[in-house]
């Protein structure tokens, strides 16, 4: 048998110890383990990329079929939405005009988040305790570690592991995800923390802050990696001081991600008063 020569030289006990040693090593030297992991994932990427293609085709076809089935109700809904949007359009146009004038006065360059690349998702591994997706693009495609990943209008996470041909995007719902945010409206700063549930929550919020359900959250850009002002989500619930945020992007149905160029920082400067920052960031 082929394995008799290759395997069974090491007993289970030795391999058990090796596993434990690897777990500890990953804790002691995360950089080394990450390097090995990204190299390994690079090797598997072509396989995953090829296998997911027919699947995305089937998914697209299914979406078309589903769309045909409820065409009538969809139409009614869209007509309703359209009339509402027309009203909003008028509002938006006047606000845009006003905005342009104001930007002209304070002399800032209106910069939309520059999307550098769009990459397909090749794997949605996660596991019970990790919320992440793998994309078929890496350092070779000009991606960098820490880059913000969006789907449509909403932030979904950032690149945490970068290989040559692949990268892992840690989603904002992951237990280890912490993102500095600003609550629009009140301009309050906070940190958006994931806990593996579908709705991340806010921490380090100033005590005096007033938060309302429906408040929009954008990135604060404090980490120096994210551009300022990328939309993330809205406050969904406030329960005994626990503020949950519903992401704008549908994290359940991800097919591709857009990577935002972090080096070209948005010209919009964070409005934070530095003293206030230290206060709430330092607090436990």
């Amino acid at each position: 048998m082929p394995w008799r020569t290759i395997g069974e030289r090491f007993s289970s006990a030795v391999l058990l110890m090796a596993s434990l040693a690897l777990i500890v090593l990953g804790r002691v030297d995360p950089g080394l383990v990450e390097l090995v992991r990204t190299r390994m994932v690079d090797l598997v990427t072509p396989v995953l990329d090829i296998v997911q293609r027919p699947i995305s085709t089937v998914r697209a076809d299914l979406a078309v079929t589903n769309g045909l089935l409820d065409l009538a109700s969809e139409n009614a809904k869209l007509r309703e939405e359209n009339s509402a949007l027309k009203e909003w359009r008028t509002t938006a146009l006047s606000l845009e005009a006003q905005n342009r004038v104001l930007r002209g006065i304070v002399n800032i360059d209106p910069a939309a988040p520059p999307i550098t690349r769009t990459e397909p998702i090749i794997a949605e591994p996660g596991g019970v305790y990790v919320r992440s997706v793998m994309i078929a693009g890496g350092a070779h495609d000009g991606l960098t570690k820490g880059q913000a990943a969006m789907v449509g209008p909403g932030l979904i996470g950032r690149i945490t592991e970068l290989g040559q041909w692949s990268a892992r995007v840690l989603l904002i719902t992951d237990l280890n995800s912490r993102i500095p945010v600003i609550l629009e409206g009140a301009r309050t700063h906070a940190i958006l923390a994931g806990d593996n549930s579908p709705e991340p929550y806010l921490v380090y919020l100033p005590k005096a802050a007033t938060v309302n359900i429906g408040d929009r959250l954008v990135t604060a850009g404090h980490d120096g990696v994210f551009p300022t002002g990328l939309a993330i989500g809205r406050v969904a619930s406030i329960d005994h001081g626990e503020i949950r945020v519903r992401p704008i992007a549908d994290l359940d149905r991800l097919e591709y991600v857009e990577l935002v160029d972090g080096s070209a920082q948005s010209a919009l400067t964070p409005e934070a008063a530095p003293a206030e920052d230290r206060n709430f960031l330092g607090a436990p």
Partner: protein
Amino acid sequence: MAMGGATPLSRLDQTARGFLPVITVILLGIIAVLPIGIPQWGALAPPLMLIGVFYWSLVRPDLMPPTAAFALGLLQDFLSGAPIGSGALIMVVTQWTMRGQQRFLANRPFLLLWGSFIPVAFVAAMLEWGVYALLNLHAVPIMGALVRLMLGFALFPVVAWLVLIPTHSKLPPE
């Protein structure tokens, strides 16, 4: 089926077939991470590789030695983003537990095999949860691990009938 050692070609064929169990588990690992569009699929993470390692360690421990279980566990860690070594630990423990059970469980009704997957998957879920909680110093909800356990239990016959049992008949004689 040609017996081993007849001609170089048939020997090569036998050798290649000997790797089939490991190959099926690799395939299961790839299936488990594919973005198939089921909401929360990634978060549920059905333990497909565990089912494979469990099955082969029981019915053909000679083709699923500790080294192979260790390597497959590492592959799972690389793909899933879990702490490196945690999957390897689970697979080695599973292989170790199951390889001695052949005389109790082999050639018994499928239901018995299916039922015996529960304690194994339970230990795996607890190990995974324990390692993660210890590394993050954060008692993460155990619910995720239990949901995963149930999903693994539910998918066990599907994986067995679609992938594992058909492969079984293609294996070289013990």
